[in-house]
Protein backbone atom coordinates (compact mmCIF):
# COMPACT_ATOMS: atom_id res chain seq x y z
CA UNK A 1 0.00 0.00 0.00
CA UNK A 2 1.38 3.41 -0.88
CA UNK A 3 1.73 6.24 1.62
CA UNK A 4 -1.04 8.22 -0.11
CA UNK A 5 -3.40 5.25 0.13
CA UNK A 6 -2.47 4.75 3.79
CA UNK A 7 -3.26 8.42 4.49
CA UNK A 8 -6.64 8.09 2.78
CA UNK A 9 -7.43 4.95 4.78
CA UNK A 10 -6.43 6.65 8.04
CA UNK A 11 -8.61 9.65 7.15
CA UNK A 12 -11.50 7.27 6.41
CA UNK A 13 -11.18 5.64 9.80
CA UNK A 14 -10.97 8.80 11.93
CA UNK A 15 -13.95 9.24 14.29
CA UNK A 16 -15.86 12.50 14.65
CA UNK A 17 -15.36 14.54 17.87
CA UNK A 18 -12.65 12.26 19.31
CA UNK A 19 -9.03 11.55 18.51
CA UNK A 20 -9.58 7.80 18.47
CA UNK A 21 -12.47 5.35 18.40
CA UNK A 22 -11.74 4.41 22.01
CA UNK A 23 -13.33 7.73 23.03
CA UNK A 24 -16.56 6.91 21.15
CA UNK A 25 -16.66 3.39 22.57
CA UNK A 26 -16.13 4.76 26.09
CA UNK A 27 -19.10 7.12 25.62
CA UNK A 28 -21.29 4.21 24.46
CA UNK A 29 -20.28 2.10 27.47
CA UNK A 30 -20.82 4.98 29.90
CA UNK A 31 -24.29 5.61 28.45
CA UNK A 32 -25.05 1.88 28.79
CA UNK A 33 -23.98 1.83 32.46
CA UNK A 34 -26.07 4.95 33.13
CA UNK A 35 -29.08 3.32 31.45
CA UNK A 36 -28.73 0.15 33.55
CA UNK A 37 -28.41 2.29 36.70
CA UNK A 38 -31.49 4.30 35.72
CA UNK A 39 -33.49 1.15 34.96
CA UNK A 40 -32.45 -0.27 38.34
CA UNK A 41 -33.55 2.90 40.15
CA UNK A 42 -36.76 2.88 38.09
CA UNK A 43 -37.44 -0.73 39.15
CA UNK A 44 -36.71 -0.04 42.83
CA UNK A 45 -38.55 3.29 43.00
CA UNK A 46 -41.81 2.07 41.46
CA UNK A 47 -41.82 -1.41 43.05
Amino acid at each position, binding site marked *: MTTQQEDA*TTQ*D*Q*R*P*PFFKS*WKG*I*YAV*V*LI*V*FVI*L*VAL*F*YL*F*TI*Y*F*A
Partner: protein
Amino acid sequence: MSLLDLIVLFGTLGFIVFYGAWKTKGSKNIQGYLLGDNSMKWATIGLSVMATQASAITFLSTPGYAFENGMEFVQNYFGLPIALIIVSAIFIPIFYRLKVYTAYEYLESRFDLKARLLGALLFLIHRSLAAGITIYAPAIILSTILGWSLSFTILLVGILVIIYTVSGGTKAVSLTQKYQMGVIMAGMFIAFFLIIDYFPEEITFMDSVKIAGKLGKLEAIDFSLDFSKRYTFWSGITGGLFLSLSYFGTDQSQVARYLTGKNVTESRMGLMFNALLKIPMQFFILFLGVMVFIFYQFVQPPVYFKKPAVDNILMQEHKDAFLSLEQRYEENFKAKRSRLFELKDAMAEGNDLEIRLRSEKVNELQERSKTIKNEVKGLLLRSDPGYDTKDSDYVFLTFIMNYLPRGIIGLLLAVIFSAAMSSTSSELNALGSTTTVDIYKRLFSSSGTDRHTLIISKILTAIWGIIAILFAFIANQAENLIEAVNIVGSLFYGTILGIFIAAFFIRPIKATSIFIAAIVAEILIIILHFLNILKVVEIGYLWYNVIGFTITIVAGYILSMILKK
Protein backbone atom coordinates in the same frame (compact mmCIF):
# COMPACT_ATOMS: atom_id res chain seq x y z
CA MET B 1 -61.78 0.48 8.54
CA SER B 2 -62.59 3.97 7.22
CA LEU B 3 -61.72 5.27 3.75
CA LEU B 4 -59.37 7.83 5.32
CA ASP B 5 -57.43 5.03 7.08
CA LEU B 6 -57.16 3.06 3.84
CA ILE B 7 -55.88 6.16 2.00
CA VAL B 8 -53.27 6.84 4.74
CA LEU B 9 -52.21 3.17 4.86
CA PHE B 10 -51.90 2.49 1.14
CA GLY B 11 -50.71 6.04 0.38
CA THR B 12 -47.82 5.71 2.87
CA LEU B 13 -46.84 2.21 1.77
CA GLY B 14 -47.23 2.99 -1.92
CA PHE B 15 -45.17 6.14 -1.69
CA ILE B 16 -42.29 4.43 0.14
CA VAL B 17 -42.24 1.38 -2.14
CA PHE B 18 -42.50 3.15 -5.48
CA TYR B 19 -40.31 6.09 -4.51
CA GLY B 20 -37.66 3.64 -3.27
CA ALA B 21 -37.88 1.54 -6.44
CA TRP B 22 -37.85 4.59 -8.74
CA LYS B 23 -35.02 6.39 -6.94
CA THR B 24 -32.70 3.35 -7.05
CA LYS B 25 -33.60 1.82 -10.39
CA GLY B 26 -30.20 2.60 -11.87
CA SER B 27 -28.10 -0.25 -10.41
CA LYS B 28 -26.15 -1.37 -13.47
CA ASN B 29 -23.53 -3.55 -11.81
CA ILE B 30 -23.26 -6.08 -9.03
CA GLN B 31 -21.24 -3.72 -6.82
CA GLY B 32 -24.03 -1.17 -6.94
CA TYR B 33 -26.72 -3.81 -6.48
CA LEU B 34 -25.16 -5.59 -3.50
CA LEU B 35 -23.11 -2.82 -1.83
CA GLY B 36 -25.07 0.26 -2.91
CA ASP B 37 -21.90 1.65 -4.58
CA ASN B 38 -20.51 2.15 -1.06
CA SER B 39 -22.23 5.51 -0.92
CA MET B 40 -24.23 5.47 2.33
CA LYS B 41 -23.74 7.96 5.16
CA TRP B 42 -23.88 6.96 8.82
CA ALA B 43 -27.46 8.17 9.42
CA THR B 44 -28.83 6.02 6.60
CA ILE B 45 -26.78 3.04 7.78
CA GLY B 46 -27.89 3.57 11.39
CA LEU B 47 -31.59 3.76 10.48
CA SER B 48 -31.22 0.85 8.07
CA VAL B 49 -29.60 -1.35 10.76
CA MET B 50 -32.35 -0.35 13.20
CA ALA B 51 -35.15 -0.97 10.69
CA THR B 52 -33.72 -4.38 9.77
CA GLN B 53 -33.81 -5.51 13.40
CA ALA B 54 -37.18 -3.92 14.21
CA SER B 55 -39.71 -6.10 12.44
CA ALA B 56 -43.49 -5.77 12.65
CA ILE B 57 -43.37 -8.34 15.42
CA THR B 58 -41.40 -5.79 17.47
CA PHE B 59 -44.30 -3.38 17.32
CA LEU B 60 -47.07 -5.94 17.91
CA SER B 61 -45.50 -8.50 20.20
CA THR B 62 -43.36 -6.22 22.38
CA PRO B 63 -46.20 -4.02 23.70
CA GLY B 64 -48.22 -7.24 24.15
CA TYR B 65 -45.35 -8.79 26.12
CA ALA B 66 -45.16 -5.72 28.39
CA PHE B 67 -48.96 -5.77 28.80
CA GLU B 68 -48.70 -9.29 30.17
CA ASN B 69 -45.25 -9.47 31.81
CA GLY B 70 -43.95 -5.92 32.26
CA MET B 71 -40.62 -4.41 31.29
CA GLU B 72 -38.24 -7.37 31.83
CA PHE B 73 -37.75 -8.00 28.09
CA VAL B 74 -35.56 -4.87 27.84
CA GLN B 75 -32.74 -6.92 29.40
CA ASN B 76 -32.63 -9.01 26.23
CA TYR B 77 -30.85 -6.05 24.59
CA PHE B 78 -28.16 -5.47 27.23
CA GLY B 79 -25.48 -7.29 25.26
CA LEU B 80 -26.15 -5.18 22.18
CA PRO B 81 -23.98 -2.08 22.83
CA ILE B 82 -20.97 -4.23 23.75
CA ALA B 83 -21.51 -6.43 20.70
CA LEU B 84 -21.69 -3.41 18.42
CA ILE B 85 -18.44 -2.04 19.83
CA ILE B 86 -16.73 -5.38 19.09
CA VAL B 87 -18.17 -5.50 15.55
CA SER B 88 -17.14 -1.89 14.98
CA ALA B 89 -13.60 -2.32 16.31
CA ILE B 90 -12.75 -5.73 14.87
CA PHE B 91 -15.17 -7.00 12.22
CA ILE B 92 -15.68 -3.85 10.13
CA PRO B 93 -11.98 -3.09 9.39
CA ILE B 94 -11.40 -6.70 8.31
CA PHE B 95 -14.46 -6.79 6.04
CA TYR B 96 -13.41 -3.47 4.47
CA ARG B 97 -9.78 -4.56 4.03
CA LEU B 98 -10.81 -7.75 2.25
CA LYS B 99 -13.46 -5.86 0.20
CA VAL B 100 -16.00 -8.62 0.76
CA TYR B 101 -19.62 -8.67 -0.42
CA THR B 102 -20.67 -11.11 2.30
CA ALA B 103 -19.32 -12.00 5.74
CA TYR B 104 -18.79 -15.63 4.67
CA GLU B 105 -16.20 -14.72 2.04
CA TYR B 106 -13.86 -13.95 4.92
CA LEU B 107 -14.15 -17.54 6.19
CA GLU B 108 -12.59 -18.88 2.99
CA SER B 109 -9.61 -16.54 3.25
CA ARG B 110 -9.06 -17.59 6.88
CA PHE B 111 -10.07 -21.28 6.72
CA ASP B 112 -11.19 -22.87 3.48
CA LEU B 113 -14.11 -23.22 1.10
CA LYS B 114 -16.05 -25.71 3.22
CA ALA B 115 -16.01 -23.33 6.23
CA ARG B 116 -17.34 -20.56 3.99
CA LEU B 117 -20.07 -22.79 2.59
CA LEU B 118 -21.03 -24.03 6.07
CA GLY B 119 -21.31 -20.46 7.37
CA ALA B 120 -23.38 -19.43 4.34
CA LEU B 121 -25.59 -22.53 4.58
CA LEU B 122 -26.34 -22.05 8.30
CA PHE B 123 -27.26 -18.45 7.51
CA LEU B 124 -29.50 -19.41 4.59
CA ILE B 125 -31.38 -22.02 6.65
CA HIS B 126 -32.18 -19.88 9.66
CA ARG B 127 -32.68 -16.60 7.82
CA SER B 128 -35.12 -18.09 5.32
CA LEU B 129 -37.13 -19.58 8.21
CA ALA B 130 -37.00 -16.23 10.00
CA ALA B 131 -38.07 -14.40 6.82
CA GLY B 132 -41.16 -16.62 6.70
CA ILE B 133 -41.98 -15.77 10.33
CA THR B 134 -41.27 -12.07 9.67
CA ILE B 135 -44.01 -12.04 7.02
CA TYR B 136 -46.38 -14.50 8.68
CA ALA B 137 -46.36 -13.05 12.20
CA PRO B 138 -47.87 -9.65 11.43
CA ALA B 139 -50.05 -11.14 8.68
CA ILE B 140 -51.87 -13.52 11.04
CA ILE B 141 -52.51 -10.72 13.55
CA LEU B 142 -53.47 -8.08 10.98
CA SER B 143 -55.74 -10.44 9.07
CA THR B 144 -57.50 -11.54 12.28
CA ILE B 145 -58.12 -7.99 13.48
CA LEU B 146 -58.86 -6.37 10.12
CA GLY B 147 -60.93 -9.27 8.84
CA TRP B 148 -58.71 -9.53 5.75
CA SER B 149 -57.76 -12.87 4.27
CA LEU B 150 -54.48 -14.24 5.67
CA SER B 151 -53.29 -15.15 2.17
CA PHE B 152 -53.99 -11.61 0.91
CA THR B 153 -52.06 -10.04 3.83
CA ILE B 154 -49.06 -12.35 3.34
CA LEU B 155 -49.04 -11.68 -0.40
CA LEU B 156 -49.43 -7.91 0.10
CA VAL B 157 -46.30 -7.69 2.27
CA GLY B 158 -44.33 -10.28 0.29
CA ILE B 159 -45.01 -8.91 -3.19
CA LEU B 160 -44.44 -5.24 -2.30
CA VAL B 161 -41.09 -6.16 -0.74
CA ILE B 162 -40.05 -8.31 -3.70
CA ILE B 163 -40.84 -5.42 -6.10
CA TYR B 164 -38.41 -2.90 -4.65
CA THR B 165 -35.80 -5.30 -3.27
CA VAL B 166 -35.36 -7.03 -6.63
CA SER B 167 -35.54 -3.77 -8.56
CA GLY B 168 -33.16 -1.59 -6.55
CA GLY B 169 -31.10 -4.02 -4.45
CA THR B 170 -29.29 -2.88 -1.33
CA LYS B 171 -29.66 0.82 -2.10
CA ALA B 172 -33.46 0.50 -2.35
CA VAL B 173 -33.55 -1.44 0.91
CA SER B 174 -31.54 1.23 2.77
CA LEU B 175 -33.42 4.16 1.25
CA THR B 176 -36.89 2.75 1.95
CA GLN B 177 -35.84 1.79 5.47
CA LYS B 178 -34.96 5.42 6.19
CA TYR B 179 -38.54 6.51 5.41
CA GLN B 180 -40.03 3.44 7.04
CA MET B 181 -38.23 4.25 10.31
CA GLY B 182 -39.57 7.82 10.09
CA VAL B 183 -43.15 6.52 9.77
CA ILE B 184 -42.59 3.96 12.54
CA MET B 185 -41.22 6.43 15.10
CA ALA B 186 -43.84 9.09 14.30
CA GLY B 187 -46.64 6.53 14.63
CA MET B 188 -45.38 5.10 17.92
CA PHE B 189 -44.97 8.54 19.53
CA ILE B 190 -48.47 9.59 18.44
CA ALA B 191 -49.90 6.33 19.86
CA PHE B 192 -48.05 6.89 23.14
CA PHE B 193 -49.37 10.42 23.66
CA LEU B 194 -52.91 9.41 22.70
CA ILE B 195 -52.89 6.58 25.27
CA ILE B 196 -51.84 9.04 27.99
CA ASP B 197 -54.55 11.43 26.80
CA TYR B 198 -57.19 8.68 27.11
CA PHE B 199 -56.55 8.08 30.83
CA PRO B 200 -59.39 9.24 33.12
CA GLU B 201 -59.10 12.89 34.13
CA GLU B 202 -58.28 12.00 37.74
CA ILE B 203 -55.29 9.89 36.69
CA THR B 204 -52.13 11.82 35.83
CA PHE B 205 -49.24 10.31 33.91
CA MET B 206 -47.27 9.96 37.16
CA ASP B 207 -50.22 8.21 38.85
CA SER B 208 -50.33 5.73 35.99
CA VAL B 209 -46.63 4.94 36.29
CA LYS B 210 -46.94 4.46 40.07
CA ILE B 211 -49.94 2.16 39.61
CA ALA B 212 -48.03 0.15 37.00
CA GLY B 213 -45.21 -0.22 39.53
CA LYS B 214 -47.59 -1.43 42.22
CA LEU B 215 -48.96 -4.01 39.80
CA GLY B 216 -45.46 -5.33 39.14
CA LYS B 217 -45.19 -4.10 35.54
CA LEU B 218 -42.09 -1.92 35.87
CA GLU B 219 -39.47 -4.47 36.89
CA ALA B 220 -36.94 -3.66 34.19
CA ILE B 221 -33.94 -5.21 35.92
CA ASP B 222 -33.54 -8.58 37.59
CA PHE B 223 -30.06 -9.32 38.97
CA SER B 224 -30.94 -12.85 40.19
CA LEU B 225 -28.76 -15.69 38.95
CA ASP B 226 -31.60 -17.97 37.90
CA PHE B 227 -30.83 -19.85 34.68
CA SER B 228 -34.42 -20.93 34.17
CA LYS B 229 -35.61 -17.32 33.90
CA ARG B 230 -35.67 -16.11 30.30
CA TYR B 231 -34.74 -12.50 30.98
CA THR B 232 -32.32 -11.41 33.69
CA PHE B 233 -29.46 -8.91 33.66
CA TRP B 234 -27.02 -11.82 33.38
CA SER B 235 -28.77 -13.65 30.54
CA GLY B 236 -29.01 -10.31 28.71
CA ILE B 237 -25.40 -9.32 29.18
CA THR B 238 -24.02 -12.78 28.24
CA GLY B 239 -26.58 -14.58 26.06
CA GLY B 240 -27.74 -11.25 24.64
CA LEU B 241 -24.13 -10.33 23.88
CA PHE B 242 -23.57 -13.56 21.96
CA LEU B 243 -26.89 -13.20 20.14
CA SER B 244 -26.14 -9.59 19.16
CA LEU B 245 -22.52 -10.28 18.26
CA SER B 246 -23.56 -13.09 16.00
CA TYR B 247 -26.47 -11.12 14.54
CA PHE B 248 -24.56 -7.93 13.79
CA GLY B 249 -21.19 -9.50 13.03
CA THR B 250 -22.08 -12.59 11.03
CA ASP B 251 -25.67 -12.31 9.81
CA GLN B 252 -25.55 -11.05 6.24
CA SER B 253 -28.89 -9.21 6.62
CA GLN B 254 -27.06 -6.85 9.01
CA VAL B 255 -23.53 -7.06 7.56
CA ALA B 256 -24.92 -5.95 4.18
CA ARG B 257 -26.39 -2.85 5.83
CA TYR B 258 -23.10 -1.47 7.13
CA LEU B 259 -20.99 -2.67 4.20
CA THR B 260 -22.85 -0.08 2.09
CA GLY B 261 -20.97 2.64 3.99
CA LYS B 262 -18.85 5.22 2.22
CA ASN B 263 -15.97 4.26 4.46
CA VAL B 264 -15.12 2.61 7.78
CA THR B 265 -16.09 5.73 9.77
CA GLU B 266 -19.60 5.93 8.27
CA SER B 267 -20.20 2.21 8.92
CA ARG B 268 -18.92 2.43 12.48
CA MET B 269 -20.97 5.54 13.26
CA GLY B 270 -24.08 3.79 11.93
CA LEU B 271 -23.51 0.99 14.43
CA MET B 272 -22.75 3.39 17.30
CA PHE B 273 -26.04 5.15 16.54
CA ASN B 274 -27.75 1.82 17.28
CA ALA B 275 -25.55 1.10 20.30
CA LEU B 276 -26.83 4.33 21.87
CA LEU B 277 -30.47 4.27 20.81
CA LYS B 278 -31.58 0.65 20.61
CA ILE B 279 -32.08 0.06 24.36
CA PRO B 280 -34.00 3.33 24.94
CA MET B 281 -36.15 2.51 21.89
CA GLN B 282 -37.01 -0.96 23.20
CA PHE B 283 -37.67 0.51 26.64
CA PHE B 284 -40.07 3.00 25.06
CA ILE B 285 -41.97 0.30 23.12
CA LEU B 286 -42.28 -1.84 26.27
CA PHE B 287 -43.35 1.21 28.27
CA LEU B 288 -46.01 1.89 25.66
CA GLY B 289 -47.28 -1.66 26.29
CA VAL B 290 -47.41 -0.92 30.03
CA MET B 291 -49.39 2.25 29.31
CA VAL B 292 -51.87 0.19 27.26
CA PHE B 293 -52.12 -2.08 30.31
CA ILE B 294 -52.91 0.95 32.52
CA PHE B 295 -55.44 2.21 29.99
CA TYR B 296 -57.24 -1.13 30.25
CA GLN B 297 -57.33 -0.82 34.06
CA PHE B 298 -59.79 2.05 33.64
CA VAL B 299 -61.54 1.12 30.40
CA GLN B 300 -63.17 -2.31 30.25
CA PRO B 301 -60.99 -4.63 28.13
CA PRO B 302 -62.38 -7.69 26.36
CA VAL B 303 -61.96 -10.83 28.44
CA TYR B 304 -60.12 -12.30 25.47
CA PHE B 305 -58.42 -10.27 22.72
CA LYS B 306 -58.80 -12.64 19.73
CA LYS B 307 -62.28 -11.56 18.67
CA PRO B 308 -62.90 -14.29 16.05
CA ALA B 309 -62.34 -16.93 18.73
CA VAL B 310 -64.90 -15.21 20.96
CA ASP B 311 -67.40 -14.98 18.06
CA ASN B 312 -66.81 -18.66 17.44
CA ILE B 313 -67.40 -19.75 21.03
CA LEU B 314 -70.63 -17.74 21.15
CA MET B 315 -72.01 -20.03 18.46
CA GLN B 316 -71.09 -23.21 20.34
CA GLU B 317 -72.23 -25.26 23.33
CA HIS B 318 -69.90 -23.31 25.65
CA LYS B 319 -71.73 -20.02 24.99
CA ASP B 320 -73.44 -19.85 28.41
CA ALA B 321 -70.25 -20.73 30.28
CA PHE B 322 -68.40 -18.02 28.34
CA LEU B 323 -71.07 -15.36 29.00
CA SER B 324 -70.97 -16.20 32.70
CA LEU B 325 -67.18 -15.83 32.77
CA GLU B 326 -67.45 -12.58 30.83
CA GLN B 327 -69.88 -11.22 33.42
CA ARG B 328 -67.59 -12.23 36.30
CA TYR B 329 -64.70 -10.58 34.48
CA GLU B 330 -66.67 -7.31 34.14
CA GLU B 331 -67.69 -7.33 37.80
CA ASN B 332 -64.10 -7.98 38.82
CA PHE B 333 -62.95 -5.16 36.53
CA LYS B 334 -65.36 -2.68 38.16
CA ALA B 335 -64.24 -3.69 41.66
CA LYS B 336 -60.59 -3.38 40.65
CA ARG B 337 -61.18 0.00 39.03
CA SER B 338 -62.67 1.37 42.27
CA ARG B 339 -59.75 -0.03 44.27
CA LEU B 340 -57.29 1.56 41.88
CA PHE B 341 -58.79 4.99 42.52
CA GLU B 342 -58.47 4.29 46.26
CA LEU B 343 -54.87 3.24 45.74
CA LYS B 344 -54.23 6.43 43.81
CA ASP B 345 -55.67 8.49 46.69
CA ALA B 346 -53.53 6.60 49.22
CA MET B 347 -50.44 7.29 47.12
CA ALA B 348 -51.36 10.99 46.96
CA GLU B 349 -51.64 11.04 50.78
CA GLY B 350 -48.34 9.16 51.15
CA ASN B 351 -49.82 6.73 53.70
CA ASP B 352 -47.50 3.69 53.41
CA LEU B 353 -49.75 1.27 55.28
CA GLU B 354 -52.79 2.20 53.19
CA ILE B 355 -50.72 1.97 49.99
CA ARG B 356 -49.58 -1.53 50.93
CA LEU B 357 -53.06 -2.74 51.89
CA ARG B 358 -54.70 -1.32 48.78
CA SER B 359 -51.92 -2.60 46.52
CA GLU B 360 -52.49 -6.08 47.93
CA LYS B 361 -56.22 -5.79 47.26
CA VAL B 362 -55.66 -4.57 43.68
CA ASN B 363 -53.16 -7.35 43.02
CA GLU B 364 -55.61 -9.90 44.41
CA LEU B 365 -58.27 -8.65 41.98
CA GLN B 366 -55.70 -8.65 39.20
CA GLU B 367 -54.94 -12.31 39.93
CA ARG B 368 -58.67 -13.03 39.85
CA SER B 369 -58.85 -11.43 36.39
CA LYS B 370 -56.07 -13.74 35.23
CA THR B 371 -57.86 -16.78 36.68
CA ILE B 372 -61.10 -15.88 34.86
CA LYS B 373 -59.13 -15.32 31.65
CA ASN B 374 -57.49 -18.73 32.06
CA GLU B 375 -60.93 -20.28 32.44
CA VAL B 376 -61.90 -18.65 29.13
CA LYS B 377 -58.78 -20.13 27.56
CA GLY B 378 -59.80 -23.49 29.04
CA LEU B 379 -63.16 -23.20 27.26
CA LEU B 380 -61.39 -22.46 23.98
CA LEU B 381 -59.18 -25.51 24.48
CA ARG B 382 -62.21 -27.67 25.18
CA SER B 383 -63.60 -26.59 21.79
CA ASP B 384 -60.26 -27.09 20.04
CA PRO B 385 -57.47 -28.82 22.02
CA GLY B 386 -54.79 -27.60 19.58
CA TYR B 387 -55.84 -23.94 19.72
CA ASP B 388 -53.13 -21.37 20.56
CA THR B 389 -54.78 -19.44 23.38
CA LYS B 390 -52.12 -16.75 23.78
CA ASP B 391 -53.68 -13.40 22.90
CA SER B 392 -51.08 -10.84 24.04
CA ASP B 393 -49.93 -10.18 20.45
CA TYR B 394 -53.44 -8.89 19.70
CA VAL B 395 -53.61 -6.39 22.56
CA PHE B 396 -51.92 -3.39 20.94
CA LEU B 397 -53.65 -3.76 17.59
CA THR B 398 -57.04 -4.15 19.32
CA PHE B 399 -56.35 -0.91 21.17
CA ILE B 400 -55.38 0.83 17.89
CA MET B 401 -58.51 -0.34 16.08
CA ASN B 402 -60.94 0.42 18.91
CA TYR B 403 -59.70 3.70 20.34
CA LEU B 404 -57.45 5.65 17.98
CA PRO B 405 -59.02 8.31 15.72
CA ARG B 406 -59.54 7.91 11.98
CA GLY B 407 -56.42 8.54 9.97
CA ILE B 408 -54.19 7.61 12.91
CA ILE B 409 -55.40 4.00 12.63
CA GLY B 410 -54.17 4.03 9.01
CA LEU B 411 -50.85 5.52 10.12
CA LEU B 412 -50.35 2.89 12.84
CA LEU B 413 -51.17 0.11 10.39
CA ALA B 414 -48.64 1.67 8.02
CA VAL B 415 -46.13 1.47 10.92
CA ILE B 416 -46.71 -2.26 11.27
CA PHE B 417 -46.61 -2.97 7.53
CA SER B 418 -43.52 -0.73 7.14
CA ALA B 419 -41.75 -2.63 9.89
CA ALA B 420 -42.66 -5.97 8.29
CA MET B 421 -41.39 -4.77 4.92
CA SER B 422 -38.19 -3.19 6.24
CA SER B 423 -36.89 -6.33 7.92
CA THR B 424 -38.13 -8.65 5.16
CA SER B 425 -36.38 -6.57 2.48
CA SER B 426 -33.04 -6.84 4.30
CA GLU B 427 -33.53 -10.58 4.69
CA LEU B 428 -34.34 -11.16 1.01
CA ASN B 429 -31.49 -8.92 -0.07
CA ALA B 430 -29.05 -10.86 2.15
CA LEU B 431 -30.38 -14.27 1.12
CA GLY B 432 -30.04 -13.29 -2.53
CA SER B 433 -26.52 -11.88 -2.18
CA THR B 434 -25.24 -14.85 -0.13
CA THR B 435 -26.62 -17.37 -2.62
CA THR B 436 -25.15 -15.35 -5.52
CA VAL B 437 -21.70 -14.61 -4.10
CA ASP B 438 -20.96 -17.57 -1.83
CA ILE B 439 -22.62 -20.34 -3.77
CA TYR B 440 -23.47 -19.52 -7.39
CA LYS B 441 -20.51 -17.33 -8.28
CA ARG B 442 -18.02 -19.27 -6.16
CA LEU B 443 -19.00 -22.78 -7.27
CA PHE B 444 -20.61 -22.43 -10.68
CA SER B 445 -19.76 -19.17 -12.41
CA SER B 446 -16.50 -17.66 -11.21
CA SER B 447 -15.82 -16.17 -14.66
CA GLY B 448 -19.37 -14.89 -15.31
CA THR B 449 -19.75 -11.29 -16.48
CA ASP B 450 -20.86 -8.55 -14.13
CA ARG B 451 -24.20 -8.20 -15.93
CA HIS B 452 -24.79 -11.96 -15.79
CA THR B 453 -24.14 -12.00 -12.00
CA LEU B 454 -26.45 -8.99 -11.55
CA ILE B 455 -29.31 -10.76 -13.34
CA ILE B 456 -28.70 -13.97 -11.38
CA SER B 457 -28.67 -11.97 -8.14
CA LYS B 458 -32.05 -10.41 -8.98
CA ILE B 459 -33.53 -13.79 -9.90
CA LEU B 460 -32.23 -15.38 -6.67
CA THR B 461 -33.59 -12.50 -4.57
CA ALA B 462 -37.01 -12.99 -6.17
CA ILE B 463 -36.82 -16.76 -5.59
CA TRP B 464 -36.00 -16.21 -1.89
CA GLY B 465 -38.96 -13.84 -1.73
CA ILE B 466 -41.24 -16.57 -3.05
CA ILE B 467 -39.72 -19.12 -0.63
CA ALA B 468 -40.27 -16.69 2.29
CA ILE B 469 -43.91 -16.26 1.23
CA LEU B 470 -44.29 -20.06 1.07
CA PHE B 471 -42.74 -20.42 4.55
CA ALA B 472 -45.16 -17.75 5.76
CA PHE B 473 -48.07 -19.78 4.38
CA ILE B 474 -47.04 -22.94 6.21
CA ALA B 475 -45.73 -21.34 9.43
CA ASN B 476 -47.43 -22.43 12.63
CA GLN B 477 -48.12 -19.82 15.22
CA ALA B 478 -45.54 -19.85 17.97
CA GLU B 479 -46.05 -19.14 21.67
CA ASN B 480 -44.93 -15.56 21.24
CA LEU B 481 -44.00 -14.33 17.81
CA ILE B 482 -41.02 -12.15 18.70
CA GLU B 483 -39.61 -14.98 20.79
CA ALA B 484 -40.06 -17.39 17.88
CA VAL B 485 -37.73 -15.28 15.72
CA ASN B 486 -35.18 -15.02 18.52
CA ILE B 487 -35.35 -18.76 19.26
CA VAL B 488 -34.73 -19.65 15.58
CA GLY B 489 -31.76 -17.23 15.62
CA SER B 490 -30.39 -18.60 18.90
CA LEU B 491 -30.34 -22.15 17.50
CA PHE B 492 -27.76 -21.14 14.88
CA TYR B 493 -26.07 -17.95 16.04
CA GLY B 494 -23.80 -19.51 18.70
CA THR B 495 -22.25 -21.88 16.16
CA ILE B 496 -21.84 -19.23 13.46
CA LEU B 497 -20.30 -16.84 15.98
CA GLY B 498 -17.94 -19.60 17.16
CA ILE B 499 -16.68 -20.05 13.59
CA PHE B 500 -16.08 -16.30 13.18
CA ILE B 501 -14.44 -15.78 16.60
CA ALA B 502 -12.12 -18.74 15.90
CA ALA B 503 -11.33 -17.15 12.54
CA PHE B 504 -10.59 -13.72 14.01
CA PHE B 505 -8.79 -14.55 17.24
CA ILE B 506 -7.73 -18.20 17.64
CA ARG B 507 -4.99 -18.89 15.12
CA PRO B 508 -4.28 -22.52 16.17
CA ILE B 509 -7.80 -23.59 15.13
CA LYS B 510 -7.66 -24.86 11.56
CA ALA B 511 -10.24 -25.39 8.82
CA THR B 512 -11.14 -29.07 9.26
CA SER B 513 -11.31 -28.79 13.05
CA ILE B 514 -13.70 -25.83 13.00
CA PHE B 515 -15.83 -27.49 10.35
CA ILE B 516 -16.33 -30.68 12.42
CA ALA B 517 -16.73 -28.71 15.67
CA ALA B 518 -19.43 -26.48 14.15
CA ILE B 519 -21.44 -29.43 12.87
CA VAL B 520 -21.19 -31.18 16.27
CA ALA B 521 -22.20 -27.95 18.07
CA GLU B 522 -25.22 -27.44 15.81
CA ILE B 523 -26.44 -31.00 16.30
CA LEU B 524 -26.06 -30.72 20.09
CA ILE B 525 -27.92 -27.38 20.20
CA ILE B 526 -30.82 -28.78 18.23
CA ILE B 527 -30.95 -31.84 20.57
CA LEU B 528 -30.84 -29.45 23.57
CA HIS B 529 -33.72 -27.45 22.13
CA PHE B 530 -35.87 -30.56 21.76
CA LEU B 531 -34.99 -31.64 25.33
CA ASN B 532 -36.08 -28.15 26.40
CA ILE B 533 -39.38 -28.47 24.53
CA LEU B 534 -39.95 -31.89 26.14
CA LYS B 535 -39.12 -30.30 29.56
CA VAL B 536 -36.28 -32.80 30.14
CA VAL B 537 -34.05 -29.78 30.76
CA GLU B 538 -35.14 -26.24 31.52
CA ILE B 539 -32.97 -23.50 30.10
CA GLY B 540 -33.64 -20.01 28.69
CA TYR B 541 -33.11 -19.96 24.91
CA LEU B 542 -30.57 -17.10 25.09
CA TRP B 543 -28.17 -19.62 26.63
CA TYR B 544 -28.18 -21.62 23.36
CA ASN B 545 -25.96 -18.88 21.94
CA VAL B 546 -23.41 -19.25 24.72
CA ILE B 547 -23.48 -23.06 24.64
CA GLY B 548 -23.25 -23.31 20.82
CA PHE B 549 -20.41 -20.82 20.78
CA THR B 550 -18.50 -22.58 23.59
CA ILE B 551 -18.84 -26.06 22.03
CA THR B 552 -17.64 -24.76 18.65
CA ILE B 553 -14.61 -23.04 20.11
CA VAL B 554 -13.60 -25.73 22.64
CA ALA B 555 -14.21 -28.67 20.28
CA GLY B 556 -12.48 -26.80 17.45
CA TYR B 557 -9.43 -26.14 19.61
CA ILE B 558 -9.19 -29.72 20.97
CA LEU B 559 -9.62 -31.19 17.49
CA SER B 560 -6.89 -28.90 16.13
CA MET B 561 -4.51 -30.07 18.85
CA ILE B 562 -5.35 -33.73 18.13
CA LEU B 563 -5.04 -33.35 14.35
CA LYS B 564 -1.76 -31.47 14.77
CA LYS B 565 -0.25 -34.43 16.63
